[in-house]
């Protein structure tokens, strides 16, 4: 009986339909969705929403002593240390965060899923090489590795995305690996193999579809991690290159004024927090809906 049940579950289509309807019934998930939607709209509509050119250093944007201006009717969130409009920079900064979030995490998921499936299905030498390599990557302090990588390659938006992907693929690889291993032992996979299906065909046609929900969940949670890592690298001055605004480098550029002009640090800080929070809330809700096994955070 149990075997049959497992087979039925295994062959059944992954429960990805109607997710949205189930998400919006959860207040926290809805909150996350709305926040993400807002950031997406702001990022796409930046040229129309932003009151000023985010790159223009206004002569009147600094006091006579060279101090940034506090929020007022002209500059809603005040100006930064070179006299640019903080509000406009924040709006364009949303583009940076989303691009990095999606691209870097997309690459990380791609690498992680490929490594995980290959190691989990092919086993043998492939498994040993790939999984020992992920063990090795797990032993690196992620930020230190990212810093060294960023120092080695001259940072640009795409390099930063690559650096983050290089650091972040490991976790998803391990999760996919574990799932693939248990899937590979299921009868329906055995049956495919017996019928002479090639390894590539089995991995892509039969295993991958069953991993979709896992990938969606961890892909969403991974964006939060990615957004935070980008912000941290930019905060350290080795992320996105100026003058392109990123919420992290806005804080980097203005941190010395945190006691006299705290809004310069805390407004972008709240933006980073909100975006990461939104993806975390959404990811957790997706996990509740799609993945009843509830793996721990580590």
């Amino acid at each position: 009986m149990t075997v049959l049940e497992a087979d039925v579950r295994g062959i059944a289509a992954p429960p990805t339909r109607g997710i949205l309807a189930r998400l919006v019934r959860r207040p926290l998930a809805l909150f996350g969705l709305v926040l993400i939607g807002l950031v997406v709209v702001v990022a796409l509509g930046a040229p129309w929403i932003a009151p000023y050119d985010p790159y223009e250093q206004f002569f009147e944007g600094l006091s006579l002593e060279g101090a940034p201006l506090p929020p007022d009717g002209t500059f809603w969130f005040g100006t930064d240390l070179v006299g640019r409009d903080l509000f406009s920079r924040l709006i364009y900064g949303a583009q940076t965060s989303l691009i990095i979030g999606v691209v870097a995490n997309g690459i990380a998921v791609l690498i992680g899923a490929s490594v995980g499936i290959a190691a989990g299905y092919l086993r043998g030498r492939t498994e040993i090489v790939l999984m020992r390599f992920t063990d090795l990557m797990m032993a690196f302090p992620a930020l230190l590795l990212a810093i060294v990588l960023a120092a080695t390659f001259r940072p640009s938006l795409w390099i930063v995305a690559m650096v983050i992907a290089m650091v972040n693929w490991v976790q998803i690889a391990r999760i996919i690996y574990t799932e693939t291993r248990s899937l590979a032992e299921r009868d329906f996979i055995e049956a495919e193999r017996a019928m002479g299906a090639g390894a590539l065909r089995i991995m892509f046609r039969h295993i991958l579809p069953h991993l979709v929900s896992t990938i969606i969940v961890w892909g969403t949670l991974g964006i939060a991690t990615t957004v935070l890592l980008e912000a941290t690298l930019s905060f350290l001055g080795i992320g996105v290159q100026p003058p392109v605004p990123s919420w992290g480098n806005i804080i980097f550029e203005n941190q010395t004024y945190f006691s006299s002009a705290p809004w310069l640090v805390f407004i972008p800080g709240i933006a980073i927090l909100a975006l990461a929070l939104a993806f975390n809330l959404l990811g957790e809700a997706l996990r509740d809906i799609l993945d009843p096994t509830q793996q721990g955070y580590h």
Partner: protein
Amino acid sequence: MKQLLLSCVAGASFALALGATAAADDIKQGGSMIVTYKDDVSTLDPAIGYDWQNWSMIKSLFDGLMDYEPGTTVLRKDIAEDYTISDDGQTFTFTLRKGIKFHNGRELTAEDVKYSIDRVVNPETQSPGAGFFASIKGFDEASGGAGGLSGITVVDPYTIKFELSRPDATFLHVMALNFAHVVPKEEVEKYGADFGKNPVGSGAFQMTEWTLGQRVVFERFKDYWNTGLPKLDQITFEVGQEPVVALLRLQNGEIDIPGDGIPPAKFIEAMEDPTLKDLIIQGGQLHTGYVTMNVKIPPFDNVKVRQAVNMAINKDRIVRIINGRAVPANQPLPPSMPGYAKDYQGYAYDVDKAKALLAEAGLADGFETELFVMNTDPQPRIAQAIQQDLAAIGIKASIQSLAQANVIAAGGEPDGAPMIWSGGMAWIADFPDPSNFYGPILGCGGAVQGGWNWSWYCNEELDRKAAEADSIVDPARAGEREAMWRDIYVKIMEDAPWAPIFNEERFSVRSTRIGGDDALFVDPVHIPVHYDQVYAKDVQ
């Protein structure tokens, strides 16, 4: 020779000269002070130390043949009792004071002076200062690892003779550098590579405690040859102290000198703070911040383009961005440096003229290039201000904000960096002589792979002129030499390999209990303060 000091420094030193004889003997020795720094002290070995913070700490632990009048850039004899220069300017003979003791009690002799300089030149020491001694005979052999310098002879225990391979007007300055300070051989050999953590010299202070990452303590050396100095009994250097914290602690009376000065974010606040106002002392600095343009990378090979860049940058606005902590510059030399061309106008800020020059160069539509900058605040901000100014004349410069080491590496490649903003890595003079701003950073010698002449500007005619100026050793002709140097820098600006931006000012703060002439707190050589000379008011 030193007539062109910044007015405030000159005035201060004048006051010092007047006050010194009257006050010096009245000041009692004793008391202590606490100095803070953010970064740990790396080493106190005079052959190695080349950081902004350990430079004057080393000066208090060690002595050299020459030094400067406190608070000024005027050379004076230190452990040398006297010296003579031969007529051809190639032989310098120093006689030493007798009875100078190292901290370990042994007398300092001419042998020690020779040993110390040989040690710096010896490649195994890995001293960043070896190149300063290149004019001494036998330098090439010695720096290749073949023993000591043949040009240094110990005549007797108190007489030492230096023979040079060419006349060198800067030689006395070189003898005042930390790299020429005297170390006792037996202690160097005892500690080996750890000598820098266990320094033993003959200076006014001796080091008594070093807790890595936390504290270094200096105490008065009782047998110091220059009786009456130092004024203080003890100095404690606390490291790992954020400048913001240090300033607050100063206001609470917990510390005496925040070694890193006033942090940028607190600057406006501090200058307006009535409790701090009287404690802040402003002075010049032998520093120039500049943008290099690589003359080997088109279109910067065209002098018109380089001149256009000079005219395009709004230096007043950049000075405003850093809260007025600098003065706009129009030439490589800082105003407090001898040889500064006071009447030189430079390239005034003029966007239209800059555009016209670009058009003449056939680049009316502008061009794309890269501006390299070190990635610590405020450098990327300054680079962005420059970037915006360049954009106004059509030059689209993308910013490469990198770790210091990567910027230096790019600058040392002929095709590495079209433009570099020098901030954070800029030239601060090793000694107050105009020649010090030329060789490695503007001369042909520095325009080599891995060199520091990031504009790759090499004008052989100026190199010849520079060599000629530096061969004028006769002090009577110092004015003539200075005029030659002034000429050289004005000529350089015609070719405009640099866009000089500003000269940083220094703003030192001290607690109310530390006394001494203002000039001692903005000493151009002993940075941030002249440790040997300042005194504690609470023991007077």
